């Protein structure tokens, strides 16, 4: 909670000191001053004292008006009403505020020879109202990288703690987690005159936080979405990490199997729950055959046994067999070479097709992106209640199709959502083709390299056999010995491969178990964005908002057609079309200017009301600069002030000129019993006047 107790501006000029001190109380405070009296400069000073001057559209002293920085005007009250100007040498703003328990005062310079405007000094006590006390003080900083997070000297970090706010983290546009900064929240509490009334949350500073106004609404009403979103984010991160680990293992298996001339079967590309029954396995390609690991080991063992039995047999007894072997091997080589060439040309054809599909995919993606933009634009058109968006010609009122093509073509276009699903289906199909092709290419590549190895191996066998035919025939065959060595080498290699593969697969099982548990905790969170608790808060907000609209004299649309949109939490006007479909239109397009102001009175007030009722995070403070905009009628303004007066445990501050009219002032405030009124207008006073010090 925040409550402003007093504010003081001191401006030293080349001709004495100027300034003013204003005391403020709980409940409604009305500061009446005429239009050119410096009212808005004083409103700005409050924001400056809290480091919220970004709501005025600038940082540091740039946001302040010239009275604090360059020239103070003085009307000499000697009856002549002559105006004189004095040059500002130094100026400072004091703001004393409490959180309901403790009181602090800030001092911040707007102009100082040495001290920069980023510096703000905090006095731990009521410096303005009891100046004699010796107060502990600490220097802090604003608008620095660390000002919202630095524990010791960041002023907004201090203010967060002091006001009892616990700011949630949100994800910004770069995907980084950041705090929902205090100045954003302030935009629902301080409404400035110049641009503040042009829209809901019009002065929200830009910090790259998506849908910042919805986030502020959610925070002020303390909706469950933040804790839910945070949990959801954690789960997302965990899943991402799991999927990363999964692909690392996948990659290792890929390399391993390639090394062994094999392919891994039954491993999903992304994490999945693996069962014992569907254990991944290796399939080895040997020449034009494919073998399981056990089959491969058996075949190596068989070959080894055969070799062992022949190793001591002299060549002379084996010549026929060697010749037979040689011709078999030659036959193998020929067949493999033919297969090799065939596969090679198939693969290059496949690669070309793949390239074409990839181009197609890119085009469909661009088309999809444009269609999604078109869908959003159509939504904006609906909010603006454009008639083309409803299929009606804006000029003649006849039905038209959603197309710019010539109407004589009689083309009935798909609706955009149909068009998007159409493209998505197309995209899926292309993706399936691509995946399929990649798979085929990969398989063929493995086959090709296995054929290559086989061809080489058979060639070397053929060479050895040929050598054996002319070697000393009393010795054992050299080829046999070589084959034995090779087979033993391969056997070792396959055993090692098996071990590594098993190891990797068991890691996959571990990840799969983890994946399972994370997924189930995600499912437990539920899919709805808003909890039932949240919905009831929004409902209360809506009904209070509507009751205020009624009382403030909102007439542009029947109040029962106004809703609070569950996406943006902003008021919308709901209209029923002839076909019974309901459509929501942005209230800005459907209200008169003065009704739009009434809607804002009702909105900010309801926000405080409902947040307080549900013990939410509102500061319990509303500050309005000139809320009577767009000639909203006096009698409505009166009801608004009366409504604000009802907040006795909160603080509301209204800066108003009452059209510089005494009658208007009396009419609007007549009947206010508890308001604290500061009237500068009755004597046509300026805010900044000469002070004796």
């Amino acid at each position, binding site marked *: 909670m925040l409550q402003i107790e007093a504010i003081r501006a001191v401006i030293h000029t080349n001709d004495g000191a100027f300034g003013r001190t204003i005391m403020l109380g709980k409940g409604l405070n009305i500061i009446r001053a005429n239009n050119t009296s410096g009212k808005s400069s004083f409103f700005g000073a409050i924001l400056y004292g809290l480091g919220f001057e970004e709501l005025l559209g600038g940082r540091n002293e740039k946001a302040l008006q010239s009275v604090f920085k360059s020239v103070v005007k003085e009307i000499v009250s000697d009856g002549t009403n002559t105006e004189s100007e004095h040059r500002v040498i130094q100026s400072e703003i004091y703001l004393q505020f409490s959180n309901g328990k403790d009181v602090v005062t800030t001092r911040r310079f707007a102009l100082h020879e040495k001290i920069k405007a980023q510096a703000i000094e905090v006095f731990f006590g009521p410096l303005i109202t009891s100046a004699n006390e010796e107060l502990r003080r600490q220097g802090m900083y604003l608008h620095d990288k660390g000002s919202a997070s630095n524990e010791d000297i960041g002023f907004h970090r201090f203010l967060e703690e002091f006001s009892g706010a616990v700011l949630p983290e949100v994800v910004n546009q770069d995907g980084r987690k950041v705090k929902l900064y205090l100045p954003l929240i302030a935009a629902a509490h301080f409404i400035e005159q110049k641009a503040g009334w042009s829209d809901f949350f019009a002065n929200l500073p830009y910090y790259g936080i998506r849908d910042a106004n919805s986030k502020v609404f959610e925070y002020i009403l303390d909706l469950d979405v933040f804790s839910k979103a945070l949990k959801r984010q954690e789960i997302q991160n965990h899943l991402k990490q799991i999927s990363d680990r999964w692909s690392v293992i996948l990659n290792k298996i890929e390399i391993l199997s390639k090394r062994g001339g094999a392919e891994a079967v039954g491993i999903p590309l992304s994490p999945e729950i693996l069962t014992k029954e569907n254990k991944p396995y290796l399939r080895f390609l040997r020449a034009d055959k494919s073998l399981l690991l056990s089959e491969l080991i058996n075949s190596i063992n068989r070959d080894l046994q055969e070799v062992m039995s022949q190793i001591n047999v002299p060549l002379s007894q084996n010549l026929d067999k060697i010749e037979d072997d040689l011709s078999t091997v030659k036959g193998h080589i020929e067949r493999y070479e033919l297969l090799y060439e065939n596969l090679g040309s198939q693969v290059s054809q496949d690669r070309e097709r793949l390239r074409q599909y990839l181009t197609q995919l890119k085009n469909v993606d661009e088309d999809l992106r444009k269609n999604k*933009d078109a869908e959003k*634009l159509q939504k904006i058109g609906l909010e603006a209640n454009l008639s083309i968006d409803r299929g009606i010609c804006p000029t003649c009122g006849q039905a038209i199709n959603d197309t710019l093509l010539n109407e004589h073509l009689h083309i009935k*276009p798909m609706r955009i959502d149909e068009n998007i699903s159409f493209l998505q289906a197309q995209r899926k199909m292309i993706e399936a083709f691509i995946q399929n092709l990649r798979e085929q290419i990969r398989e063929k590549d493995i086959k090709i390299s296995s054929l290559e190895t086989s061809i080489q191996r058979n060639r070397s066998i053929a060479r050895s056999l040929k050598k054996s035919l002319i070697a000393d025939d009393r010795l054992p065959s050299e080829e046999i010995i070589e084959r034995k060595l090779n087979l033993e080498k391969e056997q070792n290699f396959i055993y090692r491969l098996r071990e590594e593969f098993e190891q990797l697969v068991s890691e996959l099982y571990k990840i799969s178990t983890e994946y399972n548990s994370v997924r189930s905790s995600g499912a437990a969170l539920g899919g709805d964005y808003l909890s039932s608790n949240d919905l009831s808060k929004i409902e209360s907000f809506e009904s209070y908002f509507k009751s205020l609209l009624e009382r403030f004299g909102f007439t542009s649309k029947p109040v029962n057609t106004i809703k609070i949109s569950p996406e943006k939490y902003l008021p919308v006007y709901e209209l029923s079309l002839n076909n019974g479909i309901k459509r929501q239109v942005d209230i800005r397009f459907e209200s008169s200017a003065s009704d739009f102001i009434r809607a804002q009175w009702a909105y900010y007030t309801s926000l405080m009301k409902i947040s307080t009722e549900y013990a939410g995070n509102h500061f319990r403070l509303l500050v309005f600069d000139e809320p009577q905009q767009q000639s909203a009628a006096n009698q409505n303004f009166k009801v608004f002030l009366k409504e604000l007066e009802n907040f006795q445990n909160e603080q509301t501050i209204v800066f108003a000129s009452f059209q510089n009219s005494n009658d208007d002032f009396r009419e609007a405030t007549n009947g206010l019993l508890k308001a604290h009124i500061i009237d500068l207008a009755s004597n046509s006073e300026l805010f900044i006047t000469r002070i004796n010090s």
Partner: protein
Amino acid sequence: MDNKIIKGGFRQRNVPLSPDYRPLYKIGLITLILQYVCRGNKSSLNKLHFFIWAMKSEKNMAFIRMVFMTEDLSKVVSWGVEPALNKALNYAIAEGIILLDNNRYTLTSKGQLINKLIRADKSLLVREKIFLSYIGKQKVTEDFITTLTERISN
């Protein structure tokens, strides 16, 4: 033998349509063009055609950027002029989004409001916005378009 009558028929299916021919898509782009790359938010028809063509595809956008980066305008030999834009402009004028004044198109206050909504959504027309803000208000002036048109037609 039974003489069964089998009924059949044809049904007109809705056809897919490029967003380039959707009224709201085009109107949205027009408001962006007027606000991002036109001095005083005013533009001639010719200039609107130039930018609508430039934003027709990512390829076109990349091409125009390249032209400005290399400052080699001779590469621009033509640009598309499509009736769809004229129709979109007619709709936009009838809706009170755009005003035609002295051969210059400009945004009405309603158009500005729509423009604001489009800009507020940071995920909407992302590449187009980046492209237009790269171009800015200085590079493609009305004089520039006129000179370019004259050079091409000669």
